[in-house]
Each structure stands twice: as C-alpha cells, then as structure tokens.
C-alpha cells in the first residue's frame, strides 16, 4: 500500500506546515523532545497509512491533531506498562526501593543472562527504563523500527509468560 503522487504531495505539504505545531503539542504533553519527535513522526506515518481517510477529512489538521493525541496516549501508557511489567519481573530484594535511575545495568543484564533472548530484554530495558525512543533503540541495534516494534512485542510476550510462571 503506497501513496500516489497526489497523496504524497498533499501529505508533504501538511508535513511542512504541521510538523512544528504538532511538535509543540507533543513536547508539552511528553516533556521530552526525542519522544515528542517520535510521536509526531509516528502520527505522519499513520497519516500515510490512512491517507485516504486523512485527505478526505474536512479538516486534515484536526485529523492529525486527533491522531497525535491517540499516539501520545498509546505511547505514554504503553511505555508505563512496559516499565511496570519489566520492574515486576525483576526479582529484587523486597527491601530495595526501586528507582528508575537506580537500576544498576549489570544487575539487570545479569538477571536475564540465562535467557536465550537476552538482547530482547536489553531492548525492553532501553525502552522502559532508559527512555529510548523506538527509533533510537532501532538505530542502536541496526534494525528498522518495524523490526524493533516486533522485537519489543516479542520480548513483552516473554516477559508476560515469565511473570505468569512466577505467579
């Protein structure tokens, strides 16, 4: 499913006009420039995927704003959820008060060192604890964001299974 020339031209124009205004919204919402930028890029990616819907909208700018709001909400809650299940999966001493910044990398890595999918857990850690954007994580691994999303998805499934087994 690609874009035809007219769709590409129209979305290009919207991008030029709306990238900064949408960034203003995303930065206010997320208080993080990198994540805000990813939210806006993801919004335009979805806009391209649904170009027919966007361009037939009586107000494409309003459509983009609503899409951005959904993206932001997904991003915030999913990252919080990833963080939550990741932390829950750590078998820390109950007396240790866990702070994001206090999680010692070697401990986390050691904890999962017996898993064949250690790289995936490192990926989750980067997203959940280190506040990497999906693109940053993908670039560090030398993979596409599509592959990165799938890896996060797979790793999350494994985390879930691990949690269920633990309980």
């Amino acid at each position, binding site marked *: 499913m690609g874009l035809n020339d007219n769709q590409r031209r129209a979305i290009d124009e919207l991008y030029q006009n709306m990238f900064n205004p949408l960034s203003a919204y995303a930065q206010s919402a997320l208080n993080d420039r990198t994540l805000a930028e990813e939210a806006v890029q993801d919004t335009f990616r979805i806009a391209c995927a649904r170009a027919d819907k966007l361009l037939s909208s009586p107000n494409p700018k309003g459509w983009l704003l609503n899409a951005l709001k*959904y993206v932001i909400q997904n*991003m915030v809650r999913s990252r919080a959820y990833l963080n939550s299940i990741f932390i829950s999966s750590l078998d820390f001493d109950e007396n240790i008060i866990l702070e994001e910044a206090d999680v010692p990398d070697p401990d986390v890595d050691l904890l999962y060192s017996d898993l064949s999918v250690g790289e995936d857990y490192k990926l989750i850690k980067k997203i959940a604890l280190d506040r990497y954007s999906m693109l940053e994580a993908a670039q560090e691994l030398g993979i596409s964001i599509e592959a990165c999303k799938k890896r996060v998805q797979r790793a999350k499934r494994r985390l879930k299974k691990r949690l269920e087994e633990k309980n």
Partner: protein
Amino acid sequence: MPEFGKNKHKDYSAFDNMSTEMLEDILRADSQLPINEDSDNEAILYIMEVIAKREKEHPTGRFQDGHQAWESFSENYLPFIEDDKSLYDFEDDFAEEQTGIKYLPSTIPFQSHKKSILSRVVFVTAAVIALLFASTVTASAFGFNLWGAVAQWTRDTFGFSTTASISEDSEQKDSANRLQNELNQYGITTALAPTWYPDGYSLENIDVAETPARTTFIATFDNNGQEILITIVAMTDSPNRVYEKDGDDVTVYSVNQIKHYIMTNLDNINVVWATENYECSISGVLSLKDAEKMIDSIYERNSS
C-alpha cells in the same frame, strides 16, 4: 496571527498575547484530558501554531529542522506504512484490558465541540491573560503573581465540578440572575454578577471549578455565537493586590468605590476588578457603553 482559525467565527487572538509557557500549560492540560473528553481542537490548533510561529521568528532550537525531520521520516518511518497502528500499539497486547488503554480507532474524526470544558479553560484563561498582558496593566504591578496563579489554575482544570445548562428559551432577565443565584448557593452574597446584558444574550451555562485554593465560576452568555464570559474567582485568601495602569488604553471605571479596569483588545473588551477576596472579569465583544452598563447593573440591586 496564525493561519488556522482565520475564517472561524471565534476570535482566538487573545492567545497571541500569552506567554509561550502559558500556552504550553494549556496544551499540557488538553493532552491530559481523557481521549473522549471534549476538547476545543480549533483553539488547540491555534495555540500550536502560535508557538510554532514564535519559534520560526525567534528560533530556540526546540524543534528539529523541518528538512532533517522529513529526511528522517522518509528514511525511517515512511517504509513502515503498511502498519496503520501506533508504534506502541502491540496487537497482541494485553495491556488494554489491564490498563484501559484505548488504541487508535479505525477512524479519527475531527471533533469540534462548541462547548467544552477546555474551551472554558482556554477562553477564561485568555480573558484573564489578555487583560493582564495585552493591555498595559503590568503583571508585576498586581502585587502578587497572578500570572503564576493563572498558570496554576490551568493545572487545576480537573476540578470542574458542576455544569448548569440553561435552556435557550430562558428569559434574559432570569438568565442574568442565574449567575448571582449560583453564587448565592456557594454562600457568596457579595454583588458580583451583572444583572444587565446587551440585547440578545442569554445564559448558556455556568461552570464551577473548585480547588482547595479557589472556586472559579465561569458563566457563558451567548448571542448567536457571540459570547460574553463572566469569570468570578473566589480565593481562599485575599491577596494583597495593587492595580496600576501605565497607558492610555485602560479606562478606570469606578462604581460603588470599586475600580473596574476596562481594556480593549481589537474588538474585545476586557473588564477586571477585585473586591474582597474575589477576582472578577467580563470579556466579550462589547461597546464601552455596554460594558459600563453591565458594571452598573452589578450594584443596582444594592442601591434600589
């Protein structure tokens, strides 16, 4: 003035005079609304464009360069448009049932709700800020950080507690008295609400927002899309206010030994005054004569 909203019936020009920080507070408050909550997207888009325009005129580096952003988009995101879900939307996710996450729906309609909580927030904020900053009344001259108070107020928007909807058939006089009646229900007997409004205006609704520090009443009077907003903020403590004007476009209109500051901003008139522990304002497209008549009507009940 940003392009968006030019042809809209609402005048968002008050946002042009707000600080960027204040505008960001409004965007932040909007982003924290539940996804299905009413939001005035026209106003939000206008604010976004005000911020973007300022950045273009006075770059601070807060936004990525547009060309670089497009290159990154083309290289990293555009190849991935087969998936029309958010990057953080995992299809097999079990998060939704556990966390209540609502994922991107199949359609994303443009919502423009004429009356919404946010519109109350942004317009009242606009009214208050406009009278502080679009005029020559300086914030520092108020003797307390009203700017900060307003910013804090926007963070308290979740405190909106009640809304009284008024039928369009209500008689104008009855409409006018409703606001004071609402105040009375909160134990506020001080004369604060006008009892006279220009022809055609009738009360549309009253929003009441309660926080530990203040109770804010926002009454909207409508006349075929033209609005007059009356804002009354009852403060827990009476701040030590010092009002000062340093320009010619502020008219001081004294009634009942209370100074009412009348300021014009394009076609809008903003009136602000303080009495006891109440901060009050009137905002709308009004003539000076009508504004003064509305002010007079507040105190007529006392003299009759």
